[in-house]
């Protein structure tokens, strides 16, 4: 029984910083839940409250069937992996792995067995006698995970466990983590500020901002149906293109362009100001293979980046860019393609095109826009518009 329930959990630090604000979240048994959000949004705090390392200022933490709000961390039957691994530098790998069980006075044979199992599973058998300082970053990471594993807790908590690794190793370890979770099936709460990690690992992903959960859903759902501007801007790389626009007469108009709305859109009849969001992948280069039915726009790319499989084309449009708090907060972490020298406030779009197209900077070209993939947000509240027609969330009970 490793489900975790957070009921209206809050954390107010001394000095009045509200790090976590009334968060209610359910992590189902065996689920891989990712908490993601920009720096300082309260992810670590939330995780540490589940662990019991921070006291809650309000609300309730339930693990399995037990209210553990006032239970000390060692008695919560959870294990945590820290960002800097927190391996005991003066102990060997074997001692590091065994330490938790030893503290719990587990029988020697059991400790031996569990340590051996974990070492085998993580490929650490050769290194059991070494000290952490004699290991590479990836190996340390494995030991940290192994240390959590041997205790066979009812839940794992991981706080940015991959952020100290280089990009390549991170990708490998990501895969290993996913496989490990599949094998062990232990409830996992995973904190990261990297949305790629979040999308690839999570059964479900909770997006946090300012201590508040913005949306908690499967990666697909987050990507396809962001509930608000922040989630839309935060999830996806390159980030969603956002621009102020107006819906009128069945078309969305911006920068002198008019794109007809998709047939089924509930906003067809509306006439109002909106914020328009277009995923970079919603563009395709106009050409013989393009879908003739899609609306077409003419642009002059000012930056073309060939990445092999795909080409990123960025271009300016004569429209006001969206600079609301939500978007700025999200952009902090998203590596949006930007020009060093930015001219007048123009909206900047990025299109991700097929790698076989060969656009050239400063040469006019035409793009097709998939109008099924347009997103609309209320300019004032940032809430997504036109979602109501579709089923709002997956059924809650698993």
């Amino acid at each position, binding site marked *: 029984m490793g489900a975790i329930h957070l009921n209206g959990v809050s954390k107010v630090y001394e000095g009045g910083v509200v790090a976590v604000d009334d968060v209610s979240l359910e992590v189902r048994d065996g689920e891989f839940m990712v908490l993601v959000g920009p720096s300082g949004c309260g992810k670590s705090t939330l995780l540490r409250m589940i662990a019991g390392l921070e006291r809650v200022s309000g609300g309730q933490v339930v693990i399995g069937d*037990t209210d*553990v709000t*006032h*239970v*000390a961390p060692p*008695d*919560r*039957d959870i294990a945590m992996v820290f960002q800097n691994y927190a391996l005991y530098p003066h102990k060997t790998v074997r001692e590091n792995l065994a330490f938790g069980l030893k503290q719990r006075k587990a029988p020697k044979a059991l400790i031996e067995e569990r340590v051996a199992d974990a070492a085998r599973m993580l490929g650490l058998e050769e290194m059991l006698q070494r000290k952490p300082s004699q290991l590479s970053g990836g190996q340390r990471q494995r030991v940290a995970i192994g240390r959590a594993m041997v205790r066979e807790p009812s839940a794992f908590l991981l706080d940015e466990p991959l952020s100290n690794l280089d990009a390549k190793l991170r990708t490998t370890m990501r895969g290993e983590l996913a496989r490990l979770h599949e094998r062990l099936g232990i409830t996992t709460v995973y904190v990261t500020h990297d949305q790629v990690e979040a999308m690839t690992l999570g059964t479900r992903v909770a997006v946090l901002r300012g201590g508040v959960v913005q949306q908690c859903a499967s990666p697909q759902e987050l990507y396809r149906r962001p509930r608000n501007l922040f989630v839309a801007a935060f999830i996806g790389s390159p980030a969603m293109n956002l621009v102020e626009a107006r819906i009128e007469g069945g078309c969305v108009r911006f920068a002198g362009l008019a794109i007809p709305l998709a047939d089924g859109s509930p906003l067809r009849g509306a006439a109002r100001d909106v914020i328009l969001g277009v995923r970079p992948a919603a563009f395709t280069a106009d050409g013989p293979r393009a879908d003739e039915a899609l609306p077409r726009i003419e642009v002059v790319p000012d930056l073309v980046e060939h990445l092999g499989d795909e080409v990123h084309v960025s271009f300016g449009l004569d429209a006001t860019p969206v600079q609301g708090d939500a978007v700025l907060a999200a952009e902090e972490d998203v590596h949006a393609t930007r020009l060093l020298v930015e001219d007048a406030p123009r909206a900047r779009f990025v299109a991700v095109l097929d790698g076989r197209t060969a656009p050239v900077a400063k040469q006019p070209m035409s793009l097709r826009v998939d109008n099924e993939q347009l997103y609309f947000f209320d300019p004032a509240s940032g809430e997504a518009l036109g979602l109501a027609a579709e089923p709002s969330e997956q059924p809650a009970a698993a």
Partner: protein
Amino acid sequence: MPPHRRLVERVFGETPSAWLYLLPAVVIIVGLAIVPVFWSLLLSFQDKDPIAETTSWAGFDNYRELFHDEKFRGAVEHTITYTALFVPLSILGGLGLALLLNKRVRFIGVYRTLAFVPVIVSATVQGVLFSVIFDDQVGVANGLLDKVGIAPQPFFSDGRQALLLLVLAGLWAGTSCISFCAVIFLAALQDIPRELTEAASIDGARAWGTFKAVTAPALAPVTIFLLLWQTVQGIQLFDLVYGSTAGGPGDATVVVVYFIYRSIRESAYGTGAAASYIVVAGLAAIGLAFWLGRFAVSRRGRGATA
């Protein structure tokens, strides 16, 4: 049901156990540092009759007596003379030595060992050692002078020379000697990134220019610390005197702490306490002057840039 946090812990947090951790430290430090400071003040206003074992309120009598006591005035004078010579000489010597020891030459490790060894010699040993070397009858020092054709000196049997010899002994060994200053300076010198001095010398600065531009500013905080530290050490001088002259000849080398030591031996607690408070007042005045001086310097610095 997993055990819940103990009730005490939930109500008081870690306060009770933290105070258990602190207990030994707090007992010793409060009992033997904080309480005595105030007690001392109280004592300095009291008069104790050692025979009748009665204590009476003396007001400022002890202080007044001290101001007219030739011996105490002498002690203050000797302390000031010692400090005034000892502080600048030890700091300058230490700086010079540290600059030498910072050279990258062969055997520098051996040189450093030789130069640092005096720090660990106790002042008593040093006092004893110097009183033997500078014995006016049979000391090696007079033998040396004799060889160069200088008349034998009275050394420790002459009051003035005895005090100067104490300065020399203090500079040579003990926890505040030249070597001690050199250790501190050298640590600070080695904290200066090499690139900095190299950059300066590439910019065409000569040795003196590099010193002024890079080294001196980096050593400034340490120098201020040493100035304060050495002054305090100078004013607290005791063990050298205890090991060598025991205050003599006459009372020529009685310094303030030695004076207090004698008053304790004579059970004149009031006098001793008053004497120590006078010294502390002196120290406080020096500290204040220091602080004001730094304040003025930093103001002037800001004025110059403005």
